[in-house]
């Protein structure tokens, strides 16, 4: 599954834990219910999938040991993960990779970034150009992002968006 960063495909060096198999060595992303197993592992970096029904506070203890947190969209209309991503940055001050996965539309890309997501898993047959365009549709936002330092335009709530 291609991974996008700043509108471009990047190499994904992480693998997902396989159900019923040991985690092994290397960088691995575990489901939430295998978090303690992952934390107990001696080597390799750790990522976790945060179910969109959980509060981000469940990751508080584990946070220093996490390099990736995956927020999930079972369906693109379910916007809980936007709030989760924002809370990971704003409340937990998480500085690692926040990755979005699941059913996501290019039209949501800018929102994800402005909530603090930095990588997005997209499906293999997706039109990459649409994602690239999505990042450039808007040069202006009409509210401050709680997690990015966007530059005010002079007055009002409007912000110039950083173009990557």
């Amino acid at each position: 599954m291609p991974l996008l960063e700043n509108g471009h495909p990047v190499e994904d060096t992480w693998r997902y834990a396989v159900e019923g198999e040991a985690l092994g060595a290397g960088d691995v992303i575990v489901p939430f219910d295998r978090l303690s197993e992952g934390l107990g592992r001696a080597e390799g970096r750790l990522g976790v999938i945060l179910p969109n029904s959980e509060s981000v506070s469940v990751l508080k203890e584990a946070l220093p040991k996490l390099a990736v947190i995956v927020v999930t969209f079972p369906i693109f209309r379910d916007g809980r993960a936007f709030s989760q991503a924002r809370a990971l940055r704003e409340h937990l001050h998480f500085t690692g990779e926040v990755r979005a996965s699941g059913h996501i539309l290019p039209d949501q890309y800018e929102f994800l970034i402005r909530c603090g997501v930095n990588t997005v898993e997209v499906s293999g047959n997706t039109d990459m150009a649409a994602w690239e365009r999505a990042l450039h549709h808007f040069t202006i936002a009409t509210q401050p992002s709680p997690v990015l330092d966007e530059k005010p335009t002079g007055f009002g709530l409007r912000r110039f968006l950083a173009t990557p």
Partner: protein
Amino acid sequence: MSTETMTRAEAAPAVLPVGRYGYDQVDRTFLRERIEQFRDQVNRRIAGDLTEEEFKPLRLMNGLYLQLHAYMLRVAVPYGTLGSKQVRALARIAREFDKGYGHFTTRQNIQFNWIKLEDTVAALEVLAEADMHAIQTSGNCIRNITSDEFAGAAKDELLDPRVHAEILRQWSTLHPEFTFLPRKFKFAISGSPHDRVVARFHDIGLIARPGPHGRPVFEVFVGGGLGRTPLVGVSLRDDLPEEDLLAYMEAILRVYNAHGRRDNIYKARIKILVQALGTDEFRRQVEEEFAAMDRARYRIEPALVEAIKARFGAPDFAPEGNAAAVLAEDRRRDVRFDAWVRTNTHEHKAPGYISLVVSLKPAGGIPGDATAEQLDLLADLADEFSFGELRVTHLQNVVLGHVRQDQLHTVWQRLSQAGLGTANVNFITDIVACPGLDYCALANARSIPIAQKLSSRFADLELQREIGDLRINISGCINACGHHHAAHLGILGVDKRGQEAFQITLGGSGEEDASIGQILGPAMAEDETVDAVARLIDLYLVRRENGERFLDTYRRVGTAAFKDVVYAPA
């Protein structure tokens, strides 16, 4: 981009629009970008890159519905305020892309019922030329923010709420966190203690008043709503300082986004969450989020409010002179004019001025409909007599906010010549009705024909004056777009074994004494319903005591007597 360094003076147009925020190049660029995004979405849909399921919420967030016969485009009227140029753009859309009509709605927007998909982008371009759009007039996001139709004009107003409505509009437009909520989300804001915005029936209702240090404070109502579970909103707090307005709104929406039901569309509104948690627990969760926020990032500094306010044109009121005396004389000379002034005007805070309500409810008419010609006339009148500004009311009428009292007679004559001079505001024929089965894909029954029949039945103005204030609202299904629950006399269209039928509710109010109408009994056919309403009115006229409104009599007398005349006619 040069706008980055542009000073406010450079950005300010020569003349700012009165009563609403004046766009500059930055705002216009944003709208153009939005149109290009929508064009791209339409193209991707046509190319098959977007499924209809994926396209639907995207087009809805651009106000485009697929209705029974055609696409319907809902245009946003932020806080209900329009400029004359904008009204002419709406007239043009009515002419070029619709069948010559626009329909004003209960959320202060305007809808066009006969738009072709392939014309939509062109229509959006016409709107954009007039600094208008259809963003977030539908979809599971924060919808158009409604406000008082007499904002900035009413004598009883403590604070013009439109500046804060504009702040909320900007903040909520394509908000990254709140554009895919569990369900639609509706705000209303007022700066008057007299609730003319139905604040208590909104997801969030805000009542502003001046606070200490000269900055506004807000009472925050949450979890009101109509639809299949009508509920009066609860007051979450009474003293929200202006600087925390956005922080607190974000806190509420975050709790809702995280915990609102997504498994059942009928239980997805915030009102259900507030009920499920209880007000205290809901408030606790909001306060917890609020306390955890980095509030400095959200703070609205007075300077920001003032900067936005500075982009609102203010009317330059002329001295009072003898305007009031002229009006008094005009009223003495012309009885019909006098009757109209009594019903269709509202006291203005500036001496010598008055606000007038243009009734879009002529006898037998379709509530809220305006023709392209009427829209053009309204634009002309706004230019000549009301600083180029007019407002849409949630009761589907139009308001000219600031008319000189000595010019009122002239304005009334011009309105009357165009069939817009009906003296029935707040009377029994000032009916609110949703589009119903004539247009709406969700309807069980037609709302418009029964509204027309009632309007014709009670057309006699003498009789209407005798009956006095009486609010009838009609919805074509339980979704309650016509606010029937909040009506003194509500009518709900239902499906009775494949036949259109109507239920009557009594005793609702959308104002500060907010209450939900009680269902009187089984549904009836259209004509029976009209007859039943007539009997209800007769009973009221017999039973009322000194100056009581219909609602007062109903509340005093109780349901039983009213039920008897409807179901056991003598």
